[in-house]
């Protein structure tokens, strides 16, 4: 294997809760578990709709528990980073007293030997509660809930956070590796399809038109100069990872004599008002091993493009070349 690229993606979701889940989460801050009546049944955790008919339920809430019975369970000997406890625990379906369905949650039993179907459990509450399913820290064996002094949320809970993080290790293909190496050396490596004669960058390893594999034997070095076919001025809005604060341009560059349009490139030393279609530009690279302050999304050692000063290309169809 040629190697891997590791990337960690964060998923910082903020979710609105609505009238039913919001009421449930608010009750959690008050150390209560609440269900909703659906016909003759009490559904826990509450749903907005009758699970059998899909009809919207009246907001007829009812407290259940605090204790309940384990209907089924498994023992998690090695918890993941997303699990609610960092030591071995049970995941269980707990049917709370007064409920007709089971709530999935953790049981902090200490040992697998303490677990059994039919055992009685009660909630252990967190001291700090914010209206989240993990305000219920875990169930513990027995009939007695572990509660804290103090009331619940001052206002009804309407939102919740869900933060997950996943690390991916993506294998680098041999094509990608050679393309990256070329980029480190200040070259654009292309792949020329022997059927349609189109040229591609980025070491993708196939022609998407003819759906055939392309490899080392199809590689060609591409020119460093090209023309801007289109551009956009981006006004930064705050989101995770965004560091820019002032409006900046991104340009599409059609490399001379090829079919390759490099999208969303950095244009250097040109005020936003002066960016235009037809402008002649040339790639600027950092020297090998040089550490430069550049947009991390740019490939390899490419810093961006600089105007060459040559006369503009005035072809009116340029704007249509987006890839």
């Amino acid at each position, binding site marked *: *294997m*040629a190697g891997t690229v590791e*990337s960690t*993606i964060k*998923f910082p*979701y903020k*979710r609105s*809760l609505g009238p039913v*889940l919001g009421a449930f989460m608010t009750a959690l801050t008050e150390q209560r578990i609440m269900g909703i009546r659906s016909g003759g049944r009490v*559904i826990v*955790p509450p749903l907005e709709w009758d*699970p059998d008919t899909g009809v919207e339920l009246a907001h007829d809430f009812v407290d259940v528990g605090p204790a309940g019975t384990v*209907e*089924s*369970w*498994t*023992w*998690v*000997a090695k*918890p*993941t*980073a*997303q*699990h*609610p406890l960092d030591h071995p625990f049970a*995941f*269980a*379906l707990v049917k709370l007293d007064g409920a007709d*369905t*089971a*709530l*999935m*949650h*953790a049981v902090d039993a200490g040992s*697998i030997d303490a677990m059994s*179907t039919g055992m009685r459990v009660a909630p252990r509450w967190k001291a700090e509660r914010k209206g*989240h*399913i*993990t305000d219920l820290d875990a169930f513990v064996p027995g009939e007695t809930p572990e509660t804290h002094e103090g009331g619940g949320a001052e206002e009804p809970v309407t939102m*919740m956070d*869900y933060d*997950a993080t*996943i*690390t*991916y*290790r*993506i*294998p680098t*293909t*041999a094509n990608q590796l050679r393309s990256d190496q070329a980029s480190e050396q200040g070259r654009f490596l292309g792949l020329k399809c022997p059927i349609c004669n189109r040229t591609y960058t980025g070491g*993708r*390893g*196939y022609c*998407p*038109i*003819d*759906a055939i*594999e392309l490899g080392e034997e199809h590689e060609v070095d591409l020119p460093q100069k090209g023309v801007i076919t289109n551009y956009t001025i981006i006004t930064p809005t705050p989101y995770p990872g965004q560091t820019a604060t002032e409006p900046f341009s991104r340009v599409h560059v059609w490399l001379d004599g090829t079919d390759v349009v490099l999208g969303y490139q950095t244009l250097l030393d040109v005020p936003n008002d002066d960016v235009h279609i037809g402008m002649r530009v040339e790639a600027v690279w950092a020297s090998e091993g040089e550490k430069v302050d550049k947009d991390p999304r740019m490939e390899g050692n490419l810093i961006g493009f600089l105007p060459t000063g040559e006369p503009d290309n005035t072809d009116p169809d340029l704007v249509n070349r987006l890839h």
Partner: protein
Amino acid sequence: MAHDNDIAIIGWNISPMVRNTEHTEAQMLLEVITGAVTDAGITRKEVDFTCAGSCDYVAGQAFSFVQNIDAIGAWPPKRDSHVEMDGAWALYEAWLRLQMDDIDIAVAMGSGRSSTADPELIYSMEMDPYYLAPLGADAMSFAAIQARALLDAGKVTERQMAEVAARTRRDGKSRDYNQVTGDFDVDALLATDYVRAPLRRHDLPPITDGACAMVIARADKARELCENPIWITGFAHYSELHNPGMRDLRSSNSTTLAAKAAGIEEGPIEVAEIQSAFTHEEPLLVEALGLGPDTVINPSGGPQAANPIMATGLVRIAEAAGQIRDNGKHRTLGHSTSGPCLQQNLVCILEGGK
């Protein structure tokens, strides 16, 4: 038996199933699509519609399926669709699309590289975002909870589960593409520790990278291209409530409904390829499908031998088709499932003959 508006499978291809592929998902698809259209005796140019099943969370990239379109050869442009589901549901959409009567040939595919991250962390992100995902509720834990429900009800034993593992991985030796196969001693398997009680390592599917593609055609075109088209005579899927705490985990109602809707009762099923990724799911699904002892289950080895998430179900249908084309069977079944504790189930019934 086949009617003018019926639709048939005319070719397919299954990739090597490996723990860590060096290929991109698009490259895996490139190969299986080439394999499937070659198997069908056509080229990509003759394909009128494509539908892919894949998952952004598995791929680690938003809109990852857009890159996968490169594998289709989408020039001139093709009618294309995507489902964030197993390729078996992509096949279902392609089957529906051909019934609109205006085009003849479709390709369905499924692909996934589960190796690139921890499948336990990915799975929980796909659960109910309020009650389940924030607990990190993962596929193995859900399966283990359902296994215990079946054990407690006396519907399965740990020995039966180990026997499923030993049988499927032995049968799986018959397929070169499989990942985990071999001869295992049931007593030795039962002597091992639990990974997630009551599940042991042998009860779990492998983590697999792989892909599958399949070509289907309307009746006239299928007969023109293929000596022995494999007719899709019934195709249905049903879904149940998402949260496993609100279902009876000792049965699979949606499987039974899908099987009935697909016409399972119209004749005997000689071979069933079912997506029982965890060993206890096999007896549960066999009962829900209403299959008797005469039906051979997962002779390919099933998901126990290779479990390419997003393609496992389509591989089941391909294997069921292979039993008719290559093994002299007449009526077979492919099954796929999705969601925690077998929430959603799909049944595809296949028959041979003109």
